[in-house]
C-alpha cells in the first residue's frame, strides 16, 4: 500500500524497534526510499534515542556510590535480610 507521510509517522517508533509487521515495514521502506523528509525524521529520532541512552546524559552525582555503599554498610553490619 502506498503510504503518505502522516501514515509513516504513525509507525516511526515500531519501525525503529523493528517490531512492525513485515508488510507494513515494506510499505514504510518504499516511502522512505523517495521521501527525504520522512527519512530525516526517522534518522533523527533514532539518533536521539541513542543519545538519551548514553550514561553521560544523566550522570550520577559525585560520590553517589560512596554514600550509597556507606549507608548500606551500616545496615549490613547489623541486620540480616528478613526471613521469608
Amino acid at each position, binding site marked *: 500500500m502506498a503510504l503518505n507521510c502522516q501514515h509513516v509517522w504513525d509507525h516511526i517508533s515500531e519501525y525503529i524497534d523493528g517490531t512492525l509487521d513485515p508488510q507494513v515495514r515494506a510499505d514504510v521502506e518504499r516511502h522512505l526510499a523517495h521521501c527525504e523528509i520522512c527519512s530525516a525524521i526517522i534518522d533523527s*529520532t533514532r539518533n536521539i534515542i541513542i543519545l538519551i541512552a548514553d550514561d553521560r546524559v544523566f550522570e550520577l552525582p559525585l560520590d553517589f556510590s560512596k554514600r550509597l555503599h556507606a549507608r548500606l554498610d551500616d545496615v549490613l553490619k547489623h541486620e540480616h*535480610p528478613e526471613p521469608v
Partner: protein
Amino acid sequence: MTASEAIGPATGNSTEAALITAILAGDRDKFHLLILPYEGQLFRTALALVKNSEEAEDVVQDAVLKAYRKLGSFRGDAKFSTWLIAITLNEARGRLRKDNRVIVDSLDEQREENADFTPAALTDWKEVPLAALERQEIRTLVQQAVAELPDSYREIVTLRDVEECSVNDTAQLLGISVGLVKVRLHRARLLLQKKLAPQLKRASKEEKNRRGGRSWFGRLSWL
C-alpha cells in the same frame, strides 16, 4: 562505560543467583557486589519520577536498603534488575504520594488528546555522534527535553530507552498494557524528536562554524 556496566552483563544471572544465595546464607557483604551494576539504572529511574537529583539519591538509598531486607522474597522468575527497578519505582511513588505530587494518569490522558504529536520536519539529518555529549551544552539540551516530557511519557522513555527494559517488562513495571506502553513510547519519542532535532541541528551547525568546518567526527580523528 562505567565500572558497574563492565561487570553487569558479564556476571550473568547464574552469578547473580549465586550471590543472592551467599548473601542469604550469611555472606552479607556480597550485597555490595550484587547491586553495583544497577546503581546508575536505579538513579535514572528515580530521577524520572522525582525530578530532583538529591531526592532521587535518597529514593535509591531507601530502595536498595529495602531490597536487601526483602532479598529472601526475590523470586528468580523475574530479572533481579526488574525487581530492583520495581522497588525503586514504588519508593519514588510513595514519596510523590506523600507530598501530593502523584502522577495523575487521567490528566495526562486528557493532555494526550490535545497534544500535537507531529514530528519536526527536516530535509536532511546529519548524525550527532555520541562524542557530542562531551559538550555540556548538548547534555543539557537532551536532559531538558526529557525533563519537559509529561510525567507518564518520561517514565516510559526512561524505562524503555534509557534503561533499555523490554516493552513487556516496562508494561509490568508500570502496571499498564503493552499497547499503552507502545502508544506512549511512540508519542514520547516524537515529542523528543520535535523538540530536540532542530536544537541539535542548530548546535551542530554552530559547532561546525566554530571549528572552521571540522565536524565532531573530524575533530575526534584529529585528536
